[in-house]
């Protein structure tokens, strides 16, 4: 657990709810047969917020994020992303978001540069823009000398930072990150969160799922999913007070115990 004293520095951010919510969901539900993976969740995320979507493995986080980015259709409920309805306006949503899937999904058999060029092209950037942003990105990440290396050969931490940057390549309004720091060393994790803050400072809304409860401290607001439902929602400080816990980890443990007994906290 990283104590808050060692947390990365956070520039003060502009709270912007001027345009309404970046993401809102009402009773969003997804069933697979008789199994309810996501059970009537309701929440919203403001523009420019860093929102942490926490929960244990198998709690339904990935299913929820897949519904929000348009990979899965909801069984019930309504949600909007960047103002567009996830059930009917998927195409518009796709143009306005970035996504980093759980498996980092860059092409291992393409070079760094080739991957960037591909996604730049798909998002409609001009060749000039692609070149310019490639240079900037590689400089920021310190990967300039690796531009022509195969992504598959890069260490895990670099791959994941690269994937995050590619998700932001087209300057989307919202970026969805699904377990971006899984399996990565603490130093790289911290660098990653610096990147996230930088993006948020530019006004990008960041929606990040993770099962590392300590990362919750870095978010503006968090929600904790247990058994498909949202068991807690608020800022880390609020939740710690409410549950009388010293860390978000503790909050989660108390909630999870409730779940084991079959009750939502």
């Amino acid at each position, binding site marked *: 657990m990283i104590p808050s004293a060692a947390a990365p520095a956070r520039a003060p951010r502009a709270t912007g709810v001027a345009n309404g919510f970046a993401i809102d969901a009402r009773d969003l539900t997804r069933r697979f047969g008789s199994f309810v993976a996501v059970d009537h969740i309701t929440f919203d995320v403001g523009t420019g917020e860093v929102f942490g979507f926490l929960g244990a493995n198998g709690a339904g986080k990935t299913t929820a994020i897949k519904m929000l980015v348009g*990979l899965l259709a909801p069984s019930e409920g309504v949600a909007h992303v960047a103002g567009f309805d996830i059930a009917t306006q998927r195409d518009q949503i796709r143009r306005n978001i970035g996504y980093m899937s759980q*498996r980092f*999904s860059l092409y291992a058999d*393409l070079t760094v540069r080739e991957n960037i060029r591909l996604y730049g092209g*798909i998002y*409609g950037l001009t060749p000039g823009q692609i070149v310019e942003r490639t240079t900037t990105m590689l400089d920021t990440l310190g990967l300039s000398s690796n531009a022509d290396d195969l992504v598959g050969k890069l260490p895990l931490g670099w791959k994941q930072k690269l994937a995050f940057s590619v998700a932001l390549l087209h300057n989307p309004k919202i970026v969805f990150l699904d377990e971006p720091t899984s399996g990565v060393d603490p130093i790289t994790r911290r660098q990653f969160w610096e990147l996230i803050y930088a993006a948020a400072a530019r006004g990008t809304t960041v929606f990040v799922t993770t099962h590392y409860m300590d990362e919750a401290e870095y978010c503006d607001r968090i929600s904790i999913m247990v058994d498909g439902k949202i068991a807690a929602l608020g800022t880390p400080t609020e939740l710690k007070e409410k549950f009388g816990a010293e860390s978000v980890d503790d909050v989660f443990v108390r909630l999870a115990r409730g779940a084991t007994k079959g009750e939502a906290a």
Partner: protein
Amino acid sequence: MQTLRYLLRKEFLQIFRDRFMVAQLMLMPIIQLLLLGNAATFEVKTARMYVVDRDHSETSRGLVDRLQASRRFVAVGSSPSTDVGDQWMLERKTDVILGIPSDFERDIVRTRTAQVQLVLNAEDGVAAGVTQSYAAQIIGAYANELEAELTPMVSTAARGSGAGAPTSAGARPIEVRARGWYNPDLNYRDYMVPGILVQLVTLVGTLMTAMNIVREKELGTLDQLSVTPLSQSVFMAAKLIPFWIIALVELTLGLLVARFVFHIPMLGSIPLVFAAAAIYLLAALGIGLFVSTLVDTQQQAMFVTFFIIMIYLLMSGLFTPIRSMPTWAQWMAQLNPMKHFIEIMRAVLLKGATARDILQPIGILALFGTVVLTLAVRQYGRRVG
């Protein structure tokens, strides 16, 4: 489409980066064509014959000589006993046993009819049938020869008896000429090589296309692409086009080999062949694409595609005639794009067919391709939803 160009670039980069794969795609079909083009023939060169001649007459020896003189038969052994011949056949030391009874010559002279026995090794029935027809021809010709020898005696007798014998007694009333069109030398390669080429190109292309989408699914990059504004049809086009192009290139190489190594005639219009190939490959690879949208793992894609291709291969009419198949199988063959394209290839290359002649098979291929590609796009859309 701009995005299509980016996607195609990525696909080609991925393909050509895998050196081994490229070798497989380009070299293997050509090597196999060279070998297998020479293998596919039914012509039996020389059949080994075991002679059981109980007559030992000039006439019986004449028969054996005629058979050997044709160079289609070679006597590998002889004895008065058929049992030895039988054993030889079991041990695969001979293909044919010729049995001539002891009254052979006498029967010919007296009654103009005699019997011989021909035992053929039908373990490999195709060869047996071919050998039998060779033997029948030679024996029939020998019968005519004997008749010509014997006839002068008969017509003298007939003239003597005052019967109104025809001036050309014993001459056949019907004169038969035979002509084989398009392939007077009965060259098997001309027939087989185009077909084998089609099979090789299809095998490689369809397998690769089938694994293409599933591979991204397995690796996890498919989700990433699904979240982009990329349209489904552009995505699928990018999955189809690279191997379509590669298949056409392979076909070109194969045709060059066919022309310069096998000397296959190319009577018709080559551009027509390519136009038909373009349509055919859309249909064939489209099936691979469709399979790719239905399954979850590369392994499943592999087995399903392989199953389909086996059916295409064996029921293409290349190995056994389609019209010999039971009716339900013939209907299946109608749904086999490979069958139609092989027909087209042969018609254009060997018979000089024009576009009008091949209108029907091309139409079927175009229809097939449209249906399959539509299904593939729809199925892909359904999965993402």
